[in-house]
């Protein structure tokens, strides 16, 4: 790979990391804002009552439940971001494809929700274990989802499925796409670079509801590319 392509790839990796972090931290701040309001409401209800006033116990009892719900939500958000951050720790490692895809979808779901696009995940019945670069694969899947989001209208949908394919594995991202990209063109060249670096292969074909299926074919062994399926 040429130097400028490597440079573009690394810039793209950074942009991906930045986009995910920005979206996740925004969502985390929303959790903090809700917790802030509910704890403030608790204070208002308790401290605002005069000494002889009856306190609405039922009303007050609901507040800690809401706070707890937001804490769980925030915890899930942070766990996901933490796992994402650790995906850069090792460039070659064995990992579960199911867990990786659920994670990247969880991280980008907010972006799809903001556009009112449904992000649907249909996992296989069994675990699919692969060996390779988890950060790169997340980046490729994100790139496919992001391409679909660019062309999706409100009310549209993106479907992600995956399965074993022979000795390898296959990840399918189906959604709206521009006509040139649906024909296989990679308008900014980055997705192709990422796929090459990953040692994978991508093809596009028409799918139902005027959508396009982008299929990422993951190789069997490191000798075939950067990914090995176990």
């Amino acid at each position: 790979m040429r130097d400028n392509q490597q440079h573009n790839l690394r810039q793209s990796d950074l942009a991906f990391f930045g986009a995910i972090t920005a979206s996740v931290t925004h969502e985390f701040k929303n959790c903090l804002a809700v917790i802030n309001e509910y704890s403030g409401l608790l204070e208002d209800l308790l401290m605002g009552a005069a000494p002889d006033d009856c306190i609405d116990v039922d009303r007050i009892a609901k507040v800690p439940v809401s706070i707890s719900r937001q804490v769980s939500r925030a915890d899930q958000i942070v766990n996901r971001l933490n796992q994402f951050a650790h995906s850069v720790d090792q460039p070659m490692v064995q990992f579960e494809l199911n867990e990786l895809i659920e994670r990247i979808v969880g991280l980008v779901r907010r972006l799809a929700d903001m556009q009112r696009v449904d992000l649907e995940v249909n996992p296989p019945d069994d675990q699919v274990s692969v060996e390779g670069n988890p950060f790169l694969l997340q980046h490729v899947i994100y790139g496919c989802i992001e391409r679909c989001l660019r062309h999706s209208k409100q009310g549209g949908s993106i479907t992600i499925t995956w399965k074993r394919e022979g000795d390898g594995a296959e990840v399918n991202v189906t959604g709206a796409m521009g006509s040139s990209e649906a024909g296989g063109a990679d308008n900014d060249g980055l997705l192709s670079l990422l796929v090459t670096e990953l040692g994978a292969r991508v093809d596009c074909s028409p799918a139902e509801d005027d959508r396009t299926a982008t299929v990422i074919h993951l190789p069997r062994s490191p000798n075939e590319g950067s990914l090995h399926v176990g």
Partner: protein
Amino acid sequence: MKRIRVLLIDDEEELVSALAERLMLRDIEAVGVTRGAEGLRWLEKEQFDVIILDLKMPDMSGMEVMRRVGKLAPEVPVILFTGHGSVKSSEEGLEQGAFAYLAKPIRIEELVATIKEAAAG
């Protein structure tokens, strides 16, 4: 004395609910909605003194809502709310005509003071 009437638009339902209740406890009447389009429908049929508006919402961005408020009820001041905290988004909001910009999580005293200032203007 007539109570200040606020329209609160934010896609976080629990935030809207808790904040509306806190404002009511401070004698500020608050109507809370979770979609920009719904907020605009309220604005078409009812009078409000101040609008509190989240910048990032799924159906319609806060900026787009603000533009439409500018045509529908230009006399109603808008206080922008966001989890962004970026200088750029605050500057853009103020340039678009927002009365003020507050970053989440907010301090209720600061919000109430800003609402009263906006309503008096």
